[in-house]
């Protein structure tokens, strides 16, 4: 009898304890660059389940996508992002430089310079490759219509530009003037400069404009998957750039929202096996060696140039993409 009473008492206490602990509901805003929609659409519910199992709390992640530069400016102008997952380090660093929303050493806070995945730049052409595009030389020929986004707004576009520049340097004895002329020809062939990578994909695939889309590798594979290999082909150039899209918790805003812990864990989970699997499945290059090896065969090998070759993003941005930089000189009004 006494044992029964004790058991019942214990059960009542447990029930009361469970009832008194209510699951919290947390919201996060992930401000990301253009082509990561499918990645985070798949990743977010997986993280939410993980977080629920770990803490009992419900987390809802809202997404915002757009050209990386444009997204960074939106956060600076007041968009309250808990985390940013942008296309390049320079855009994330602006959150420190302009408003100290993140710490100065943000890039050291997560592994691999805060890049849980990498990608590169390839070409997407119409099925049959009617213009026989093989490499960067082929897309600057007269009569080839290119689709690429605007480097002023899109992070992917800046990777595209630097990939072309790298190729030109390699094939012209590192001559900047020759590289500038080469990239000038490329933009002369540009039919439309969308504001972001996804816009360019829409232009090329849905509006059927252009002969070649210079695209994120993941975006190109996604297009093949969605629209079928009977419509398009991926051409991997001989040389391209190693794109390292970084991620960061926007400390100032996360602290204000009380979401620092969950936001940090949200980004850390990208490095987990589950996160890296999702990354690989969505045609990004995982940084986990084991998962990277598993997905290696879905990518064609090519020479990859790192941003260090340009002196880092600060130098590259100032030289090429700032007002009156090289890009403005080759693609200003009247050019």
């Amino acid at each position, binding site marked *: 009898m006494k044992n029964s009473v004790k058991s019942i008492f214990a059960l009542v206490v447990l029930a009361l304890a469970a009832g008194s602990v209510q699951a919290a509901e947390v919201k996060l805003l992930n401000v990301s660059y253009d082509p990561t929609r499918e990645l985070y659409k798949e990743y977010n519910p997986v993280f939410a389940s993980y977080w629920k199992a770990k803490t009992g709390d419900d987390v809802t992640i809202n997404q915002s996508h757009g050209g990386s530069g444009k997204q960074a400016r939106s956060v600076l*102008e007041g968009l309250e992002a808990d985390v940013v997952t942008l296309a390049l380090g320079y855009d994330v660093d602006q959150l420190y430089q302009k408003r100290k929303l993140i710490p100065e050493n943000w890039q050291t806070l997560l592994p691999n310079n805060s890049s849980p995945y990498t990608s590169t730049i390839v070409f997407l052409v119409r099925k049959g490759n009617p213009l026989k595009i093989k490499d960067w030389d082929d897309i600057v020929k007269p009569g080839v219509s290119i689709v690429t986004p605007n480097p002023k707004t899109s992070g992917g576009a800046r990777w595209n530009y630097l990939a072309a520049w790298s190729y030109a340097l390699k094939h012209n004895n590192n001559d900047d003037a020759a590289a500038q002329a080469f990239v000038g020809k490329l933009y002369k062939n540009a039919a439309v400069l969308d504001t972001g990578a996804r*816009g360019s994909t829409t232009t090329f695939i849905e*509006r059927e404009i252009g002969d070649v889309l210079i695209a994120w590798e993941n975006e190109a594979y996604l297009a093949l998957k969605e629209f079928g290999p009977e419509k398009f082909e991926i051409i991997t150039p001989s040389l391209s750039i190693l794109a390292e899209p970084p991620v960061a918790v926007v400390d100032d805003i996360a602290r204000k929202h009380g979401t620092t812990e969950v936001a940090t864990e949200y980004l850390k989970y990208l490095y987990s096996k589950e996160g890296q699997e999702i990354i690989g499945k969505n045609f990004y290059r995982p940084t986990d060696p084991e998962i990277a090896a598993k997905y290696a065969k879905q990518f064609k090998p090519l020479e990859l140039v790192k941003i260090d070759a340009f002196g880092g993003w600060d130098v590259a941005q100032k030289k090429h993409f700032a007002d009156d930089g090289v890009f403005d000189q080759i693609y200003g009004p009247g050019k």
Partner: protein
Amino acid sequence: MTNFRRTAIASVINLALLGANDVQAANTDALERRIRELESRLEKLDKAAALSEKPAVSAASPEVEKLNRKVNTLERKLEVQDEVTTGNFQKMPVVEAGADGFKITSSDKKHQVRIRGAVQTDARFFLDNNANAKSLNTTNQEGPDRFELKQARVWLEGYVFNNIYFKIMPDFAASGNILPDAYLDYAYHPAASLLVGKFKSPLSLERLQGDSDTVFLERAFPTYLASNRDVGIQFHGALSKPGYKTETVAGPIDARNTLTYQVGVSNGSGDSGSPNNNSPDTDSNKEVNARLFGHPFQHTGYSWLEGLGLGVAGSFGDPNQQAVKNLTTPNGVSTYLDYTKNNSTNSGVTTSNGATYRVYPQAYWYAGPIGLMGEYVISSQHLNNGATNIKQDNKAYQVQASYVVTGEDNNFGAIKPLRNFDPLKGSWGALQLAARWSALDVDNKTFTIVDPTKSASRAQAWTLGANWFLNSNALIRFDYENVSFSGGAGTAKHITDRPNEQVFATRFQLAF
């Protein structure tokens, strides 16, 4: 096949059928078969004819393909350009110009600058220039009939970061004091805001009414026993009935929320005073003022009582030899209490020296077109002139009633006509009629200092007014005021009443 040919064949068939009347039944079957064959052939001919009318489809030429691609590309470029332009437009500030003045608001609505203005031009005509009036000395004599520029204000107001309000208001028609208002108001929360700078003292109810919104050209006697403006700091806020949102109202005037309070410390500018900006305060003693005002029936469902406002204001100070201002009549602006005219036993300058306090119970009520307002003040100060020290307790009161004849709602702020003045369309704006009775009793002890033949012991005024609102920005006011006095004339042995002052005044006003 043309319709004519088909009709012709059908006619032949019909004729054939008619002819079959004379043929035996065995021939009818043969004819029916024949009809069916012919119908079938007609159908086939029809189909062939339809096909032959279609133009032949030719393969698209390379030029057409090229043009199509160009058009597609141009369309896409336009879409991208639209996207960029829309994005840029969304970041652009919003500029508005209209009846409320000119406003520039940032795209995120966190900042706003508003340019406003007010011009008042008056005309005053003294109706009773009789011999007695002429017998008064020059400073008490009624002023000449005149036109005057009463106000010429252009000011900036607005807010930054949503809740830091500012107002900078110069008045180019004011002599000497050309900056009536200049303040910042950090409205952190509707219930707790901090106002600093130069602003209206939170004492007289009629003083707190907007300078463009008063019912009469000039305010009544109680207003002049409190300072006009002062420099200081004020903590203020408002509360609403539970369940209702409190409005944030920047500045010293809040006639919207259920309960408002103001508590402040200022330099203390004395009766009717407003400090000049080029003469800093030299007295370390400051004035504390406070006001509590409420609308007790707001949100109660008693619509005819919702517009009832009740409150009390007060101040306490301890000025040290502060100059005192003469008191003047509202519309005539003629001096009836003159501290510069001492009686025979005093020769110095009269100053306020010692504890002062004021208490202002006040109320208004607005219901539909009807408006009532009243206030009472006891103003106590210590006056000093040489060896003479007195405690002066002046009292003043006013009650006014107004009625908007054209049906618009009366209120503490501006009347907005339902239809603007446009006589060709038969609309005349809005008309408000008003009447006011006001009086000021000067403490008799005052005449141990001032000359009773030059200063009245009581002034009493009744005023009739008509306000014609042409639109929400422009109006014309007409006032008739009759002020009677007790004392203020005669001789030391036989003090008589100063003659009445009768003034007819008009004002043209534009405010935005």
